[in-house]
């Protein structure tokens, strides 16, 4: 398993480097149309051929991967910070604050958040810019995904707040904020990091689901969701197997995230 994890980290680094260097590696901008050759087969110029609008698939794959791989961690960071703030304060304060926060968390966990997500995503203005749509999609993911992590962090914060070192810190006269900042947060950091890492593949999968349903990132900006949406055209997919490349890359990247997760010895 150690080698599998090293390979997973290698894959993630290579994919991240390739999509960050998309401006240099991609043969064309993601929206550029080669109108004379729509649905072209792979060639030296177009490694994965072109789509039905004549756009280079390889370029779109690189830029789409960049969108998903940059914004899913951003959404995960947002949800982890929210979870850390809400769960940490609830666990540290205890008593009525904790009960109220946990009741709110229970409420949030009971809600079918995919339903909420498609609802809010669908009522965006019709003329929303692609960049705005991508930011809103991932911001929504970040804002709706904190509840489960907040419960875990609250439980750990409660345990830490009753531990000996915090009792001693209190006895030496440390106040609330200092206790939180100097003692509790450094101890919660590994859990926060684990929650952050868990959330990334979840958000990537959710964005892909939304994108395939046409509720994700707006065209012409590519993302994994919009790239996988091409699989809807069944008649062409069977004759153009290279259309499965985004799906294969998607599975490889998400499973790499899962393999690295195991390295952190996280509960599943």
């Amino acid at each position, binding site marked *: 398993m150690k080698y599998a994890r090293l390979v997973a980290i290698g894959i993630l680094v290579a994919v991240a480097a390739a999509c960050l260097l998309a401006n240099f590696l991609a043969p064309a901008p993601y929206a550029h149309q080669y109108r004379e050759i729509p649905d072209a087969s792979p060639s030296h110029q177009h490694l994965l051929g072109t789509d039905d609008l004549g756009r280079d698939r390889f370029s779109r794959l690189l830029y789409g991967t960049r969108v998903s791989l940059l914004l899913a961690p951003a959404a995960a960071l947002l949800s982890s910070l929210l979870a850390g703030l809400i769960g940490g304060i609830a666990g540290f304060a205890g008593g009525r604050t904790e009960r109220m926060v946990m009741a709110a968390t229970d409420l949030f966990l009971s809600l079918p958040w995919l339903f909420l997500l498609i609802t809010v995503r669908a009522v965006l203005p019709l003329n929303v810019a692609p960049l705005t749509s991508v930011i809103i999609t991932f911001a929504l993911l970040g804002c709706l995904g904190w509840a489960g992590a907040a419960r875990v962090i609250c439980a750990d914060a409660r345990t830490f707040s009753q531990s000996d070192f915090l009792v001693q810190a209190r006895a030496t006269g440390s106040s609330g904020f200092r206790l939180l900042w100097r003692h509790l947060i450094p101890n919660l950091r590994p859990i926060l990091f684990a929650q952050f890492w868990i959330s990334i593949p979840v958000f990537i999968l959710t964005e892909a*689901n939304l994108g395939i349903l046409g509720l994700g990132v707006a065209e012409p900006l590519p993302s994994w969701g919009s790239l996988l949406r091409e699989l809807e055209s069944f008649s062409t997919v069977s004759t153009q197997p290279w259309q499965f490349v985004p799906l294969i890359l998607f599975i490889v990247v998400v499973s790499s995230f899962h393999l690295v997760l195991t390295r952190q010895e996280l509960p599943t």
Partner: protein
Amino acid sequence: MVVLLGGFLGATLVRFAPGFGVDEEELDTRLSSRSVEALRATDQPDRNLFRFYVHYLGRLMQGDLGESRSLQRPVSQLLAERLPETLKSVGLGLGLGWSLALPLAITVVMVRAWLLDAISNVLVGALLCIPAAVLALLFVMEQVPARLLLSLVVFPKVFRYSRNLLVRSSELPHVLTARAKGLGNIRVLVWHILPNAAPQLVALAGVSLSLAFAAAIPVEALCDLPGIGQLAWKAALGRDVALLVNLTMIVTLVTLIANSASDLVGQRFHAGEP
């Protein structure tokens, strides 16, 4: 209370999302200014969140769930038509998913063969990495009955959690002692491992229901199954607030009932412990 709050939260999110109240019909150049005004006037009650919600609750008390604006039909009628379809798909998905996952997890834990463990982990890992929507597209492409799909969404998650729970239970000191005393595999499983893991497995059953409902949206939308997942998708595309709030509340209600039932059963298991 949670259901009402859930519906209210849904309504709030919809109301304050940018673009609320924007109606494509207003962009129709054939409409006169008076027609556009009339269209806006019909939207007016929905614009104030509290008014919208109080109206909604008042009607709900009388058994009226309102009318779907996009489909031009009473919401209760739409739900009566589509809920059984989703319940059938979800029921089949859960039944099949659990009947595949739990026996496999038990076999992996009891047999303790590394090859079986590795193969099942690779299979489950691969399934966990494929979005439900892609599975739906592949099912449509290969013309596999779409009703089976939800079981593929439920199976990997149930397998992974139950395997971990069973492994943890099988490593408890009293289980090791029972093995050392020469108890057979089946006795160890039935008397010592399963009773210990049962409360968490029951809780997992509640969670798997909400998983199945969430997966029902892409599955029903892409496989053309006329359930509430497809209805939610259509309502989202048609910006139908009344329908979406109702759907959110119903799914919240079903999830809550399932979770409460699994909590109750779990507590009974705990109460039965020595």
